[in-house]
């Protein structure tokens, strides 16, 4: 699935469902487990991830192909990408704080969490490994973000219900969350046949 091959829609669909960044690539697990207790906060964090991931994939693509490759600095990509993400998050936080108070209330507290969300860095690295073009990278970033949003909101919905359930000792907390994630991963595997991907 590399090169010029896949169309934009295929990439998007694959990123949301069949290759869900959380459930098949295991990225962003830490905040997924920590912030999936309530649907409201899950939506807030998910929206912030979609936004940051879309924007940073574009920026990272430009930086990588126009700055790092021409100067043969490929091995510095980890440092550069993480700086881009951190700087972008900081900038967005400042802009949102000035421009819109309600939006800041809704998204602001989640933004610092995103810098250390491995899904963002992971998406940037995958887009390099798969040799995506700029348009493909943006679509891939958006799709991965949406996929992450879908997964965390679904998870939060299930966990809200789970509060009333009796869970075996030792399994409550992380254990049961991982089992739910496993079942969700199996469900998402079912999408694999839809586009003829594997």
């Amino acid at each position, binding site marked *: 699935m590399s090169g010029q091959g896949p169309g934009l829609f295929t990439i998007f669909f694959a990123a949301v469902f069949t290759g869900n960044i959380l*459930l098949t690539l295991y990225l962003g697990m830490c905040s997924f487990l920590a912030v999936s207790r309530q649907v409201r906060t899950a939506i807030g964090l998910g929206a912030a991830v979609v936004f940051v991931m879309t924007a940073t994939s574009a920026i990272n693509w430009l930086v990588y192909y126009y700055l790092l490759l021409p100067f043969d600095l490929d091995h*510095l990509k*980890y440092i550069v990408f993480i700086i881009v993400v951190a700087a972008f998050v900081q900038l967005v936080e400042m802009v949102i704080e000035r421009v819109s108070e309600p939006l800041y209330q809704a998204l602001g507290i989640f933004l610092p969490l995103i810098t250390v969300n491995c899904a963002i860095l*992971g998406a940037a690295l995958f887009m390099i490994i798969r040799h995506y073009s700029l348009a493909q990278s943006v679509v891939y970033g958006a799709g991965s973000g949406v996929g992450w949003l879908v997964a965390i909101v679904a998870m939060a919905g299930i966990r809200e219900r789970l509060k009333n359930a009796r869970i075996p000792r*030792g*399994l*409550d907390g*992380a254990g049961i969350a991982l089992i739910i994630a*496993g079942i969700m991963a199996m469900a998402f595997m079912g999408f694999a046949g839809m586009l003829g991907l594997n």
Partner: protein
Amino acid sequence: MNLKKMRTVTIANLGRENQVFVHVLGICSTLAVTNDLRNTLVMCLGLIFTTGLSNLTISALRSWIPQRVRMMVTTLIIAAYVIIVDIVLKATAPDISRQLGPYVGLIITNCIIMGRAEAFALTNRPLLSLVDGITAGIGYSWVLMVIAFLRELMGSGTVWGIAVLGDWWVKWSIMVMAPGAFFMLALFVWVVKGRFLRDEGGAK
């Protein structure tokens, strides 16, 4: 007296304060690389190297790091060590490097390293921090090795790439795929918490 502290830190990191199954940190790579024992070992060595040395560096520099930008400084220090791991791996084991793909780079965002740096290295002496970093890495590693052993055995019928189970074994292909990772880690957490950490109450 310093040795005593080191022992306390070590024991805590391997068991009661284990980063993976008690604090549930570093889960991304725990799940992603454990379908093959060899890949897991390489990943663990990379992580031990990075946690140990980044803890040492951060601790040595702790009085010069300004409070406001400390996250940025920590991230840069960690990234520098990860780049070393990446380059060494590409040169010595290109196959494994390709299989691990982006997960080597993702050691940067592994929460264990950031967590140890924030929680330990910024307030402790360099040598003690080094010990803490290395043992936190070993605590992570032994959990991963157990999970990887079981997943590889059940999923492909092999250990370290050598077939140990005969043809009679029906491979559980789900074990080397994504859901198997989640189930395996959940079971591991369950057994450890339910059996060995009972007195903690387990309420979180």
